[in-house]
């Protein structure tokens, strides 16, 4: 290619070796030059490759051959050259022809070749075979076209904007939507087309998608189109945005429908379930879950058989039946006994049908819990039943009075209650009035009129008289209904019989009145008469009382009759028809058995059987018995009389409750009679006591539980100098009139009284009103254990006491006076003994000894007597000191042992310190020892025992002699007491033990005896041990 078209102009290609090499290497590019006419002047390898001409073949030939004939006809080659000359270069893309005349798509650019002067001498063309890319482009174009067609044809809108929001593309639908032509918008900014678009929400979204370079999808309802649209905004790579709008109104409608359906299902109170042909539950609505007690959705996947209580077999049978029904009429309805998750059984009403889903048959079941309805149905049935039963049980009738038309409708029962029949009662209020007992009629109609006028409920108790004369008590209660003006138009009510209750009321009233009568008088003859009168006419038409007389017969003691004139007749009747006590029934039988008799309804047959003869029969029939009761009156379980109640034709018919009342009355009468008898007895006792009380032989007082004197007789008052006023004001108290030193004794006596309940007597003193003391014997007994009220008898023993004092004084003087000569006697005897001492006469010595013993004995007796008198005078003195018991015991035993053959045996340690009067205590011990010797003449021993206890020492002297009976134990220690039997055989004054007991008690000790007759006695005494000596 080093050849140049002209010699003068250097060839660009040949001159520039470097470029030449580059151009040669560009095998994909055809590069050639032409002269200004288009004749080829150079050729590269690429040109050969692309156009098929070799350098040789084409140099010097016109480059126009490369153009298609069409292009050549249209002078395209010339135009291209001209265009290049005008603008400096020319560019084209068109089909070109190869050497073999095949066409290829090529792009080419034509440059001017200028010489050094700038004069154009040729052209360079660079051409590229674009066939491959052209094919691609064609495909793209086709695709584009297709897309375009699609976009144009679709019902969705499509718009594309460039980066400056200019319409780049808009499809037909979109143009339609915005009501513009494509031409109106393409290439224009959306902001110009829609100046206010920035405010549009959908635009804002698209703007957001553009700005944030992300896809945004949105569904919205277009007001302009009245359609639901789905908008998709896609930012494009070149900074533009494509918007795709599809009409989703249909989908939305479907969705909405679905949503509504779902809402309906979810909100239904009926349960809905869907299960497949195998019975597996696929869907449940919330109500279904709730009805069956499952959590939401918990039933899904379970078999629907678990929802009911039936067995699998039964379920299959049911399903079969359901299937048949559905075949026949498209659905099945019925009740199911179902079970909840927690096991509760309940009933549903179900409607089942079939539906095909995804080619599979499904059961659709809609059901409703009707347990409550069932229950209320049941309740309603029950309450209706109850009402019916109540009416029936209550023996009630119902009635309806149409006030305006004056027409009363009755149920059968009401007819029966009024003692009439259908057809005999015309239903008018006037006719109704005729049925009411005349005594109740006025009151009844006042009530009815009141209820009608005031339109208020109404109730009444009234009597009706049946045709057979029977009087029946009825109760009726009604509601009054008014019309719109408030005028009563109708009354609805129920009526039932209350005869029994009324009679019971009458009975009760009678009983209470009768009780007053019974208890008002203690004279029972009067009582019975009053009673019989009281029974007539409420209880009986005729009432009589018979009392048993001493001969076993009866005597009519009281009679009352409804008709006063018949009283005489009744008495007369009894005289002419005396009671035959041999009769098997009636009054004689009641007396015999003590059992009541009742004949609720006396029939003529019964009278015929009872009558003894024709005359009596006629008489009895003429009385017209209706009902009879005969009741015994008893006293302490023995029949003492009989009370008879009779009603005649118009009267009432006795019932068991009447009999109960009659028996109750009889028992009250019995009680009253018993009371009267008791009262008489008490009265007699009272009289006896009163005589004693009033006779003033003895003082009597009544003391309350607080030892207050509440009552006292004259004798008592006189004795103590108090007044009746002081007693009545209850200011006098036992303790107040008792010297201090006697309170303890009194207390002891009261305790005994309380403990044993037996009367007690004791000696004491009272303080008189003049403050002198008066010695008395008091006997006291409980009147009432509960109230602790006591009666006390008081006997003045002042005289006895004075006598005793004189006696004791006498004894004192006498014993002193006795001692004086005894002293002389003793002296003389001793002088005599001394004078005769030397005679050595044994007999004389013996005589002196014996004389001395008896002098000593006499001395002891005198000493004892003196002691007694001193004790009585309270002048016995004690010389208390500390001493050892051992010396006392040893001395005492020594003293007695010397004068007896009994062996005195000592047991126990007597080495104990005592505080007391040693001589007095020795006197006691010696007394017990000498008694032991004295009363056991045949025994050979006496046991003395010393026992030491914690606080005291006990000394006992036991003999084995005659013994003492228990009844003498206490009295032994009394003054001058001697056991009778022994008194004959044993000498003594009976004062030794008395003195001993006084001495021991003064030492704070106790003396007592235990003995057995014939075996001997043991006397004990104890003494407190001096505290310091306690071990």
């Amino acid at each position, binding site marked *: 290619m080093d050849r140049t078209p002209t010699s003068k102009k250097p060839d660009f290609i040949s001159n520039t070796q470097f470029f030449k090499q580059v151009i040669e290497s560009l095998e994909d590019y055809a590069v050639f030059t032409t002269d200004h006419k288009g004749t080829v002047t150079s050729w590269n390898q690429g040109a050969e490759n692309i156009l098929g001409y070799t350098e040789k073949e084409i140099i010097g030939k016109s480059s126009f051959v490369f153009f298609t004939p069409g292009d050549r006809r249209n002078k395209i080659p010339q135009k291209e050259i001209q265009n290049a000359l005008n603008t400096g270069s020319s560019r084209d893309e068109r089909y070109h022809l190869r050497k073999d005349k095949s066409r290829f798509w090529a792009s080419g650019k034509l440059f001017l070749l200028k010489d050094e002067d700038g004069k154009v001498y040729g052209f360079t063309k660079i051409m590229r075979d674009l066939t491959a890319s052209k094919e691609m482009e064609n495909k793209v174009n086709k695709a584009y076209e297709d897309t375009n067609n699609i976009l144009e044809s679709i019902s969705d809108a499509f718009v594309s904007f460039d980066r400056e929001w200019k319409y780049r593309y808009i499809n037909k639908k979109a143009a339609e939507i915005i009501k513009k032509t494509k031409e109106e918008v393409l290439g224009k900014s959306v902001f110009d087309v829609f100046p206010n678009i920035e405010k549009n929400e959908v635009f804002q979204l698209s703007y957001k998608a553009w700005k944030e370079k992300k896809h945004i999808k949105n569904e919205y309802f277009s007001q302009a189109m009245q359609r639901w649209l789905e908008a998709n905004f896609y930012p494009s790579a070149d900074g533009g945005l494509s918007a795709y709008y599809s009409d989703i109104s249909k989908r939305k409608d479907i969705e909405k429908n679905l949503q509504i359906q779902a809402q309906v299902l979810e909100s239904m109170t009926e349960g809905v379930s869907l299960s497949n042909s195998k019975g597996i539950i696929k869907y449940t609505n919330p109500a279904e879950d709730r009805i069956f007690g499952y959590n939401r959705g918990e039933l899904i996947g379970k078999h629907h058989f678990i929802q009911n209580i039936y067995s699998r077999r039964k379920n299959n049978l049911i399903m079969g039946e359901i299937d048949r029904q559905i075949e026949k009429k498209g659905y099945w309805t019925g009740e199911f006994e179902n079970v909840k998750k927690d096991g509760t059984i309940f009933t549903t009403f179900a409607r089942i049908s079939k539906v095909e889903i995804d080619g599979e048959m499904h059961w659709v079941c809609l059901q409703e819990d009707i347990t409550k309805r069932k229950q209320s149905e049941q309740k309603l049935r029950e309450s209706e039943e109850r009402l019916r039963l109540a009416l029936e049980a209550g023996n009630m009738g119902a009635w309806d009075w149409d006030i305006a038309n004056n027409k009363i409708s009755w149920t059968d029962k009401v007819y029966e209650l009024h003692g009439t029949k259908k057809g005999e009662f015309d239903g008018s209020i006037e006719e109704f009035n005729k049925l009411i007992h005349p005594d109740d009629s006025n009151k009844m109609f006042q009530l009815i009129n009141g209820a009608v006028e005031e339109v208020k409920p109404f109730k009444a108790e009234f009597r009706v008289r049946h045709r057979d004369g029977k009087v029946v008590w009825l109760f009726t209660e009604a509601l009054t209904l008014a019309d719109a003006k408030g005028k009563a138009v109708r009354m609805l009510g129920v009526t039932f019989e209350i005869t029994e209750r009324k009679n019971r009321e009458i009975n009760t009233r009678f009983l209470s009145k009768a009780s007053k009568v019974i208890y008002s008088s203690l004279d029972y003859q009067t009582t019975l008469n009053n009673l019989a009168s009281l029974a007539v006419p409420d209880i009986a038409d005729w009432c009589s009382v018979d009392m048993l007389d001493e001969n076993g017969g009866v005597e009519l003691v009281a009679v009352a009759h409804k008709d006063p004139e018949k009283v005489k007749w009744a008495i007369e009747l009894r005289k002419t028809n005396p009671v035959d006590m041999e009769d098997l029934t009636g009054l004689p039988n009641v007396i015999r058995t003590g059992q009541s008799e009742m004949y609720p309804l006396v029939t003529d047959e019964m009278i015929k059987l009872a009558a003894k003869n024709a005359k009596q029969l006629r008489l009895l029939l003429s009385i017209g018995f209706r009902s009879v009761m005969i009741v015994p009156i008893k006293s302490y379980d023995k029949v003492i009389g009989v009370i008879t109640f009779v009603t005649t034709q118009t009267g009432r018919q006795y019932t068991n409750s009447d009999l109960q009342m009659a028996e109750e009355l009889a028992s009250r009468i019995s009680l009253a009679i018993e009371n009267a008898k008791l009262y008489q007895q008490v009265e007699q006792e009272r009289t006896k006591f009163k005589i004693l009380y009033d006779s003033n032989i003895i003082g009597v007082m009544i003391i309350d539980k607080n030892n207050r004197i509440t009552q006292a007789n004259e004798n008592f008052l006189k004795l103590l100098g108090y007044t009746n006023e002081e007693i009545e004001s209850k200011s006098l108290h036992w303790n107040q009139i008792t010297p201090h030193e006697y309170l303890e004794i009194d207390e002891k006596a009261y305790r005994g009284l309380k403990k044993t309940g037996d009367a007690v007597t004791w000696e004491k003193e009272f303080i008189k009103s003049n403050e002198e003391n008066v010695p008395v014997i008091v006997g006291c007994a409980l009147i009432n254990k509960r109230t602790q009220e006591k009666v006390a008898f008081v006997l003045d023993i002042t005289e006895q006491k004075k006598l005793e004092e004189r006696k004791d004084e006498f004894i004192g003087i006498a014993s002193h006076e006795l001692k*004086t000569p005894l002293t002389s*006697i003793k002296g*003389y005897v*001793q002088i005599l003994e*001394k004078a005769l001492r030397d005679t050595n006469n044994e007999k004389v010595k013996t005589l002196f000894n014996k004389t001395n013993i008896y002098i000593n004995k006499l001395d002891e007796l005198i*000493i004892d007597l003196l002691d007694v008198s001193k004790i009585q005078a309270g002048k016995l003195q004690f010389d208390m000191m500390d001493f050892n018991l051992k010396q006392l015991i040893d001395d005492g035993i020594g003293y007695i042992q010397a004068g007896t053959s009994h062996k005195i045996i000592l047991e126990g340690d007597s080495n104990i310190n005592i505080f007391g009067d040693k001589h007095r205590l020795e006197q006691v011990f010696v007394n017990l020892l000498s008694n032991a010797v004295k009363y056991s003449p045949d025994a050979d021993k006496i046991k003395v025992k010393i026992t030491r206890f914690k606080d005291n020492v006990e000394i006992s002297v036991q003999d084995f002699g005659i013994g003492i009976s228990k009844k003498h134990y206490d009295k032994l220690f009394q003054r001058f007491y001697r056991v009778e039997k022994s008194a004959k055989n044993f000498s003594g004054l009976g004062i030794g033990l008395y003195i001993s007991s006084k001495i021991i008690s003064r030492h704070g000790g106790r003396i007592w005896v235990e003995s057995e007759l014939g075996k001997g006695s043991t006397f004990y005494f104890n003494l407190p041990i001096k505290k310091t000596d306690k071990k």
Partner: protein
Amino acid sequence: MKNILVCDDDEGILDVVKMALSDEGYNILTVRNGKEVLKSIETQTPDLVLLDLWIPGLTGEKIVKTFKTDQKLKHIPVIIFSANRNIEKIAKEVQADGFLPKPFDLEDLENIIKKFI
């Protein structure tokens, strides 16, 4: 010879005591009541007094007191005798020098007198 004044209202006792003690060599003067005791001691002071407690007029107790409170008579032993059981106590109280319960053994009488004279 010792003089003993014996006072008792009982003739028998005075007789017995006189007999018994005279034999023992005492000179016995007997009186029947308190006044006589006081009268007697005015003329002759006894070596010992034997006094019954229960005597008419002045009681034995008062007489003992008279003796024991009188300086001139204080030294004279007074022995009381009585049927009263509490004689020992009384003797102590009235400050008698000795006592003798009635009835007594003559031996005891002699012994107690010997104790003092």
